[in-house]
């Protein structure tokens, strides 16, 4: 059942003051994973408004604190605001489970920048779109990369988050007997002594970490301090500038992040520089994705799509590459990024920057 969408839309006049929702943990503990994306979205809108001063768009934040129990209310409130015609997010899989049914009822199109739980696509939510590959695409690719390192013993650690554990499970599956041992970290963990001991005594030459920078960075530093010399491989959860700056050049050197995103082509994108100029900081995790996704919505609005239904229809036929990520956005019926478009790249930390290593061929 479709809502009316943008208020008072007529063929003649453009509808202005539309809003793009941004849904995720904007405060509380997990906001570090979402705020960079919010900043990028803000920046995209700012750039858009500079060009469309007569008919502006704004970002409407919905701060779920990452908590599923709060997501429902925010989603209801977003749905109730007819100016909100599109939604970036929800950022996490858990809150997506509660919020998306509500968006579905109201026909509000969403693209998530970071909720990678595969099963989200199985709910026959027509409004659902995923701006990144899910765990099924990235996991095997990461495993393939690790196999390419000729590692005979791989240690797999995850942070027990839906994202981290999902990814690690796929990696384990694909690596099979190469996995010598596994362990699980926890949210906000600071002291990794026990895992580090296990890793160093296991003789593993590669380690896969499913999780986010926040724990990955101290973990990696503690591994290095304990003399671990093997390769540290993570998913897109660590593919951000903080992983570099927090871990520090020396220790992060050689760490690998896989990401279902192609390197930003310098010819097209000035995203990183823009972000740096705007926020005086390197773009954090998922900032580039959120930037591209916001721009997709802005493009639709720029073309005069002013209802939820219009924008939903716009997404269905969308097929273009984003400037920040280089990913070509095209969705299948379930809302997954077209599998052929999901290209997983490996990035290696070199001299304090993520350098594209190679595109990982599909298994």
């Amino acid at each position, binding site marked *: 059942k479709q809502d009316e969408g943008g208020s008072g839309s007529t063929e003649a006049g453009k509808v202005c003051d539309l809003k793009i929702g941004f849904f995720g943990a*904007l*405060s*509380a503990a997990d906001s570090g994973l979402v*705020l960079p994306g919010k*900043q990028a979205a803000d920046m995209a809108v700012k750039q858009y408004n500079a060009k469309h001063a007569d008919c502006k768009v704004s970002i409407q*934040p919905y*701060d779920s604190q*990452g*908590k*599923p*129990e*709060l997501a*429902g*209310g*925010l*989603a*209801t*409130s977003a749905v*109730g605001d007819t100016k909100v015609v599109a939604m970036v997010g929800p950022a996490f*899989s*858990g809150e997506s*489970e*509660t919020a998306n*049914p*509500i968006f579905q*009822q109201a026909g509000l199109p969403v693209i998530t920048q970071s909720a990678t*739980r595969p*099963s989200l696509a199985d709910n026959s939510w027509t409004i659902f779109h995923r701006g990144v590959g899910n765990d099924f695409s990235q996991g095997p690719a990461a495993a393939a990369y690790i196999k390419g390192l000729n590692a005979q013993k791989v240690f797999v650690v995850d942070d*027990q*988050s*839906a994202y981290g*554990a*999902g990814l690690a*499970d796929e990696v384990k599956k694909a690596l099979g007997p190469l996995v010598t041992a596994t362990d699980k970290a*926890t*949210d906000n963990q600071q002291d990794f002594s026990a895992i580090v001991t296990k890793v160093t005594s296991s003789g593993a030459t590669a380690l896969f970490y499913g999780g986010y920078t926040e724990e990955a960075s101290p973990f990696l530093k503690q591994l290095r301090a304990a003399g671990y010399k093997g390769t540290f491989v993570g998913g897109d959860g660590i593919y951000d500038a903080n992983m570099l700056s927090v871990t520090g050049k020396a220790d992060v050197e050689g760490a690998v992040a896989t990401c279902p995103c192609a390197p930003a082509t310098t010819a097209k994108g000035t995203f990183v520089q823009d972000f740096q100029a705007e*926020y*005086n*900081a390197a773009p954090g995790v998922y900032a580039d994705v959120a930037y591209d996704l916001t721009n997709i919505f802005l493009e639709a609005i720029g073309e005069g799509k002013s209802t939820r239904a219009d924008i939903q229809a716009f997404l269905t036929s969308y097929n273009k590459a984003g400037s920040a990520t280089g990913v070509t956005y095209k969705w299948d019926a379930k809302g997954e990024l077209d599998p052929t478009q999901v290209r997983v790249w490996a990035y290696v930390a070199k001299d304090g920057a993520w350098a594209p290593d190679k595109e990982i061929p599909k298994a």
Partner: protein
Amino acid sequence: MTDLRTRWRGFRSGMSQRWDRLPKASKIGLIVVFIVFLYALPNKGFYEYLGLPLGEYIPLYTTRNDMATVLFQCGYYILLALGLNIVVGYAGLLDLGFFGFFAVGAYTVATLTSPTSKIFTEYNWLDSPWPWLVALPLAIALSLLAGVILGWPVLRLRGDYLAIVTLGFAEMIRIVAQQNDWIFNGDRGITQIAHPPGSSGGKPIFAFDAKPYYWLVLTVIIGMVFLIRNLVRSRVGRAWVAIREDEDAAELMGVPTYKFKIWAFAMGAGIGGFSGALWAGQANFVNSSTFRLEQSILVLAAVLLGGAGNIFGAILGGFLVIYVPEWLRSIGDVFGLPEQVRIAGEPYDVSATNLRYLFFGIILIVVMIFRPQGLWPNRRRAAEIKDREKEAMVGA
């Protein structure tokens, strides 16, 4: 300042005297009107009827979040506060892990009613998901049982040790729930939890709209208030207060203190579990990251902020700890405050959304300094605390 305070006090005592003097029928009438008002709260129509412009600032409505959902959240927190109030307020047992029982209730409903629960998909323990209504009593019973099982060994400990043990217990529940490969499916959680039954006009009443849930929880709260009142005005309630005041003396006067402490724990746990079961139905999704320790602390703050040992204090507290931070989100909109400032090139998010727990913390401190007895203590407590104030040492 003092003048204002004395005047406010005069006003308050005047009001409470006037209330006391009202005939019973008028009291009941007023209470009924108030209850009707509560039921009307989330309806936009209600505000429009009153002629209040919704788009702009009005004092009650939360503009940044769905009002009905906020009220429902307040509702299940009030239930939690009512439960914890029995434990902390009446029996005087410091429980820092109360949210653990909420988790037990929520997970019971979730695992039994969701078709995605591992019971059905992996273990095949049962054939088909239960309806919500059938799972509910079991949820309450299991959390009650959890209260007894926890209380049995730990209620022999003294106050502050009890605090850390209950806290640890709640953490242990969360850690168990967090295991991805165990029954509760960790952070990935359990989806498609059943809603309560009932339909109107072919459509289910309880779905994603929070309003019916709010009405449901409000009804449960009203029922609970009567039951708890019955309890605290009986031998049981007297025993609890006696235990709080002097446990040894109580036992020597023939009060089976241990038994009643366990009862307090179990009753509180049962109510906490009830709250969790209601919530699970509404949220439709449960995962381990919901049950953080902060939640337990927030419930405790609710009870003490409201006024420990008073049912209505607990209700007020439960309402405020959810509502105030939500309402603070809208504050920025009301006054048109900037969301961001730049200091030395660095952008700082100063939105009320971002800073609301900072303000909330300040509010907690300020309220407690000026009203250490809580906002709505029972009269006896209030008197005690006023008396204590006079007994302070010189210059201490």
